[in-house]
């Protein structure tokens, strides 16, 4: 694709500025089932997205066919779009600026024999861990490599390479006709030297730990939400810290900037280039350099996360949070390497602190059971009873209902067990004063 030809064509059509964003993604995925390689998937996909500004209005298009004969059609359809859009704020693309890019560690691409060996051994270890585990339901090793480029008519010319390898496993256990299952994900730097013992232990203990679970009596309980479950819940609500929900007036945090919203122990940071994260980004999908932002400090809301458009609407600067969820999705203000900072307590100490209550380890239905306008939630959970400061019997098929803002304003203690996984959000385990539990 001759990008300069596209720029010239856009200019001729009347565009004030024009941007070409490309994402080249290559993946390999190996699925293992019952002692053999079950499926292998390989892919090579180049996605191209265009943004252009005409009459101070921003328009979007994306295509997987960028041959020259498509050029005039794409640009004409973008021009048409501009005629029907009406914006209050003047839109523009970013001008280039110096961006410091450190050398990033790209994980090792393993050869097929190494991957087969890793999957085969992992399956054997899982099955040998506990005789109640009868099936390794899922076992997948995946490598993904991405090259992201942004060029625009202001002279921006950015490129970043990233990659991640992940091992995913699921196990099922059975006891007296009751079946329970569990999944775990783990980033892998090098499949040849990866020691799966800890991963297998965590997966298997959680799987068999769910057996014999009962349903708790309904009532108000002190709770601990384990790091994985809390990361999911908090991540699902992350848009309430982002510019678009403020611009539309539908964030429950509207009008609360510089106010105390959460307990004093809560500290929230967003940094796309956080050195602790598994995937790091030196700039966002609009070419704005990554910045480290304290979103909440001592419980006070300090920063709202913006892209270029929401920042203009709020009369402020982009915080470098303009990301796409895929190459064809328009840019939106999104969190990136975001979450609650560690507190001082080990997970065992959290149980000692609440003494009696419920430890929630899993939520289900997060895409449906949340009210993003009010912060209310009512979700299916499983976990354990906490008795006399210790983990006791398993619990399942109950719901926890509450409000995310009120929950974070009634924190009892924060754990020190935060872990950075494959996602863009991570939190430690946290103990809360109370949640409404509905069970038997």
């Amino acid at each position, binding site marked *: 694709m001759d990008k300069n030809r596209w720029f010239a064509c856009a200019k001729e059509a009347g565009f004030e500025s024009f941007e070409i964003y490309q994402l080249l993604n290559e993946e390999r995925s190996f699925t293992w089932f019952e002692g*053999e390689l*079950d*499926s*292998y*998937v*390989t*892919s*090579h*996909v*180049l996605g191209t997205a265009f943004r252009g500004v005409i009459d101070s209005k921003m*328009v*979007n298009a*994306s*295509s*997987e*066919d960028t041959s020259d004969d498509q050029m005039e059609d*794409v640009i004409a*359809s*973008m021009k*048409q*779009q501009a*005629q*029907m*859009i*009406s*914006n209050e704020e003047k839109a523009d693309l970013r001008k280039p600026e110096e961006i410091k890019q450190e050398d990033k560690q790209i994980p090792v691409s393993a050869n*097929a024999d190494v991957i087969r060996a890793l999957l085969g051994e992992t399956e054997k270890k899982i099955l040998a861990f506990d005789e109640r585990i009868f*099936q390794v*339901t899922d076992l997948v090793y995946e490598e993904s490599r991405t090259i992201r480029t942004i060029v625009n008519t202001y002279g921006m010319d950015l490129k970043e390479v990233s990659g991640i390898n992940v091992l995913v496993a699921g196990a*099922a256990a059975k006891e007296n006709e009751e*079946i329970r*299952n569990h999944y775990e994900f783990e980033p892998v730097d090098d499949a040849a030297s990866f020691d799966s013992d800890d991963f297998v232990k965590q997966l298997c203990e959680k799987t068999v730990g769910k057996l014999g679970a009962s*349903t708790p009596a*309904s*009532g*108000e309980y002190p709770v601990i939400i384990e790091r994985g479950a809390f990361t999911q819940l908090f991540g699902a609500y992350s848009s309430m810290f982002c510019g678009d929900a403020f611009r*539309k007036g*539908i964030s429950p945090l509207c009008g609360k900037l510089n106010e105390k919203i959460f307990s004093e122990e809560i500290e929230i940071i967003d940094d796309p280039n956080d050195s602790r994260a598994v995937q790091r980004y030196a700039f966002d999908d609009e070419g704005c350099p990554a910045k480290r932002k304290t979103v909440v400090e001592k419980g006070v809301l300090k920063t709202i996360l913006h892209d270029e458009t929401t920042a203009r609407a709020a009369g402020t600067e982009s915080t470098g949070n303009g990301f796409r969820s895929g190459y*064809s999705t*328009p840019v939106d203000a999104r969190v990136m390497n975001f979450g609650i900072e560690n507190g001082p307590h080990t997970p065992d100490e959290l149980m000692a602190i609440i003494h009696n209550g419920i430890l929630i380890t899993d939520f*289900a*239905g997060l*895409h*449906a*059971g949340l*009210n993003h*306008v*009010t912060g*209310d*939630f*009512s*979700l*299916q959970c499983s976990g354990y009873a906490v008795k006399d400061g210790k983990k006791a019997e398993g619990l399942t*098929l*109950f*719901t*926890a*209902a509450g409000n995310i803002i009120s929950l974070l304003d009634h924190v009892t203690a924060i754990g020190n067990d935060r872990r950075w996984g494959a996602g863009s959000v991570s939190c430690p385990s946290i103990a809360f004063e109370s949640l*409404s539990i*509905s069970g038997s």
Partner: protein
Amino acid sequence: MLEKNVLETYLSLCMKSGCDFAEIFEEDQVSEEISMLNGRAEKASRTVRRGAGIRLYTGVHSVYGYTNETDHDSMMKLIDDLREAAGKKDEGPQVILTRVDYENRHPVRIQFDDVSQEERTQLLKRVDDGARAVSEKIVKVQSSLLNVRQNVQISNSTGRLISDTRVRTRIRANAYAQEGDKMQSGFYGPGAGMGLEFYETTVPEEIGREAARTALVNLNAIDCPSGKMPVVIDNGFGGVIFHEACGHALEATSVARNQSVFAGKLGTKIANTCVSAVDDGTIVNAWGSQNIDDEGNFQQRRQLIKDGILTSYMIDTLNARRMKMEPTGSSRRQSYQYEPTSRMSNTFITEGNSSFEELFEGIEKGLYAKRMGGGSVNPQTGEFNFSVMEGYLIENGKITVPVKGAALIGSGSEILMNIEKVCSNLSRSQGMCGSASGSIPTDVGQPAILVSSITVGGTSNG
């Protein structure tokens, strides 16, 4: 789309490997989404997706590769990579393709790009007007119009060459009602496997009104009580209960690997006698319909449950091999970027004999779930959850005050047995279903049903 002779060359080359079946799925999709906030069109995007996926079977195992660089060299590189994985051979059968023609069951009268952008945007303006006309308390309206046209061509080593064009449209509306410092939202999102003629009968103003009505009900709703109680779930999107509690566990994806509570249960009673259910991918112009599935087999109507007895699973060709059963034309995928597998199409409980009033008879305290949100299921344990978007208390057989924040949870095998009455007011609603082969359009549906006991998770323990 690739020419027949090119496909024959590629498929024949694929067969020079350890595989016993090869398939090429080509896709050319144009879609657009326009979104409006408070009467102003604020975002529009147009997307062209064009690529191919090649799949080889060796017994019950598969290798799959996809790319959107479909020039000869890139395709040859991909095929080489897949043959390597399946075990290269020098010999293989020559594939000769024969095109399969058929009558299109889902005709489209108004293609979205035959109508001006202004007229398309005007549809959303009408949604906005409809919502605002309901009440002054409606302070914000957000809506979007999605139009998709997907052309697919599927060829395989059995000599089959077949094409389909799938056209879809959907408007999603969110209305926000405010009173003092309270704000609540309401949602409505109808769609169809049609062109823009859909909005001649599903009037945009009505879409806005329905979203606004739900938001206003929730504004005055009290906290939902918790505990086990009888629940009447109304028609339309209420069918998400069957989709989650049973549908996913009847997909071969989980049944073939013995990862479903319903594996090995064909011919046995899994639901109360009043329950019959189908998965029907042939309904004319329905949201979840197609002429052919994503392996090129004709879509079918599958009777899943008849009078409480399990009569069929939903099976794709690869899992059919594992299960030693016939495929049911149920293989679907979001795009060429996904290997297809067994999925639902339009799945619903069929009409029963009870009147709507009969469902409420004798209920001292219960929940009437008029509109459902989404949900999810763990097919292995059968445990499911879903949220109630609009609910009311049932007190002494009568529908009384609105309640908010309810979630329903349970286990699939139990809930099917607890469906005590089925009404005759069948309707279907549209949703997107996410699973192994991506996000695909599916209809859920049912007549109103009475479930004798289900755990309701609410915010009030009183």
